[in-house]
């Protein structure tokens, strides 16, 4: 899996070169035994053969349930954790295996906003310092730093006069805005947003989502938006990749994914999300998936979703099921206009 094949991504109409290319990314974490000699007894297959491209100015949503590997993917892409195998190209340059100093230069271009605004800000630093820190580290603070910090705070909708306050004096939404200001300080081209709004109340969340959209329009940023909430991902993304147990199971433009979901997991995921409209909600037919996500230490053979797949259980004959058990489905187009990793992919309207 170390060989670089052409990534099974969307045939994009955009002429631009992707700013970020991820090919066959794999990340395994060792599982060690208890006792004195902690032998390696297995692997957590966190990310398996994940490939995608991110173009300038677009938002790619990476969605899935807890444990599906979406956060690990974002960390490996940033080289915060080394990949087991696979390649990540930024601007056509391989970044896995870069030296620390080279990586640091690259970090100016790629920044991350974390999920928990209570844990990701240093409680002992005033906000001005939190936002100035990346500038100082990269030697860009100097004379204009103060003005730059004030401007950044204004950009994210905060009052620069409050810059000498500490993080605990701000609400959750405001803290997340501080996190965004810090990420923007070095004028990156790619922002990785790891569940940036899931800790916030809806009325606050909407403001932060609007801010992210506005910043993208203004600064031409590319977002890798990692989240579990499909409604949020639908709202903000241009393209969406659905992950299940370490693999991308379906990838499509936003409109395509919701109009014609082809993978049984995508269909179940969409149909499981309640719609805040009583009449529509009462009329919906839910595809209920049984059981829980299997352990990533010992994932099912063949298609990883087959243990919970309603199609596998109810519609397929024994001979057809055998294929799901033996053969890993590739992420390919089965005639629905976008790739889906299911041998028997078929569009079902679930909204």
């Amino acid at each position: 899996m170390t060989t670089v094949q052409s990534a099974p991504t969307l045939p994009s109409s955009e002429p631009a070169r992707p700013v970020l290319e991820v090919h066959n990314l794999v990340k395994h974490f060792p599982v060690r035994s208890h006792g004195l000699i902690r032998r390696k007894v297995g692997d957590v297959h966190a990310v398996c053969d994940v490939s995608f491209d991110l173009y300038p100015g677009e938002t790619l949503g990476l969605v899935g349930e807890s444990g599906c590997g979406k956060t690990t993917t974002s960390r490996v892409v940033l080289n915060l954790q080394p990949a087991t195998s696979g390649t990540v190209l930024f601007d056509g340059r391989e970044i896995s295996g870069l030296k620390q100093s080279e990586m640091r230069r690259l970090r100016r271009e790629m920044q991350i906003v974390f999920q928990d605004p209570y844990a990701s800000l240093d409680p002992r630093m005033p906000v001005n310092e939190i936002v100035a820190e990346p500038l100082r580290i990269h030697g860009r603070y100097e004379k204009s730093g103060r003005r730059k910090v004030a401007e950044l705070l204004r950009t994210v909708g905060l009052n620069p006069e409050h810059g000498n306050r500490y993080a605990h004096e701000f609400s959750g939404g405001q803290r997340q805005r501080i996190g965004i200001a810090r990420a923007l300080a070095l004028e990156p081209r790619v922002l990785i947003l790891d569940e940036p709004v899931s800790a916030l109340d809806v009325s606050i969340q909407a403001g932060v989502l609007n801010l992210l959209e506005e910043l993208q329009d203004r600064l031409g940023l590319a977002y890798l938006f990692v989240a579990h909430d499909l409604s949020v991902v639908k709202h903000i993304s241009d393209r969406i990749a659905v992950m299940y147990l370490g693999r991308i199971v379906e990838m499509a433009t936003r409109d395509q994914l919701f109009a014609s979901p082809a993978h049984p997991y995508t269909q179940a995921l969409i149909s499981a999300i309640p719609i805040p409209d009583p009449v529509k909600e009462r009329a919906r037919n839910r595809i209920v998936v049984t059981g829980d996500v299997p352990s990533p230490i010992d994932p099912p053979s063949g298609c990883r979703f087959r243990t919970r797949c309603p199609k596998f259980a109810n519609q397929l004959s024994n001979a057809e099921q055998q294929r799901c058990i033996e053969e890993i489905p590739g992420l390919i187009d089965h005639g629905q206009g976008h790739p889906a990793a299911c041998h028997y992919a078929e569009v079902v309207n679930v909204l």
Partner: protein
Amino acid sequence: MTAPDTDISTSRNPSGGHSADDALLVIENLSVGFPTEDGVVQAVRGVSYTLRPREVLGIVGESGSGKSVTSLAVMGLLPKSARVGGSVRFRNDELLGLSETALAKFRGEHVAMIFQDPMSSLNPVYTVGWQIAEALRAHHEMSKDAAMARAVELLKTVGIPRADERAHNYPHEFSGGMRQRAVIAIAMANDPDVIIADEPTTALDVTVQAQVLDTLTTARQETGAAMVLITHDLGVVAGQADRVLVMYAGKPVEIGTVDEIFYTPRMPYTLGLLGSLPRLDATDTERLTPIVGSPPSLINLLPGCPFAPRCPLRQPICDVEEPELRPTTSATHVAACHFSEQLEGKKPSDLFQATSADDVLPDAEPSEQQARDVRGEAAAEQLSGGGQQ
């Protein structure tokens, strides 16, 4: 969740009467205060509602709106330091002020509760089956074997596969969804009349949430219980509830049937909440309309409507007088807003702006005058800064 059962459809659109006979749980003017060094935090400031048999009442609100504290007060589960006032009656029996032993009889047998985090509501050192049996034996004379047999039956009802083996597992051997189902089994154990579910699916993934919501429906059908469903997820409420109570700053600000609340809201806060939701069924990609600002501190709350600083309809009277719940579209659809009739036919985007702005920060220790100034500034900034895109 597939097509609501007939029981629900009869209790949907309940007749307007608030007569005491058909009421299961009557809460009147419930207030809860927590004394702190800075003063009393008025977490709940006068909540009244009536729960009728077999009805599902959804309570929605943001964090800190007092929705959980209300239900903890009903169950008598608040710490001793809490100051609880008002009245909670279960079939004409007053529950507030009862001794712990008297309350224990009500808990489980008449009113059961399901908490958000199933890991902390199950005891890690006992098997799941034992814990369900314990709930049974607390209220009924029965042998251990009979209780265990019933526990296995209950686990089957809530959809645990191989229930007879699984009953001997400890909670850590269950997944999150299965744990929550085990908690639902405990809640069902004594055929309660009321189940209070406090964010029962918040900690779960969506596909598991769908399973657990199904299980809750099963639990209601099996026991015939009414349910209070506390959640911040308006989608869950839309699918599950018959009536909805919207809370803000410790008070109900709007109560009505689920259709009234979602289609004809008469309180700007409700409308604002609906407008700030990213929706799966949206066809266009318009910007969301957030509610600018944040909820007020519940210590030394200022007079007037607590939503006024964030409200686009704010008038001078809103800063002086806190509105009472008044009937709007129907006698049972009540809203606490001086200008609720102005919301007729309004969409969220008519009132709220698709802004990315944030409120100004409240001062660390606002004196009343300072706080007033901040409020004024907030409104001014909202007016001037709202349009900057």
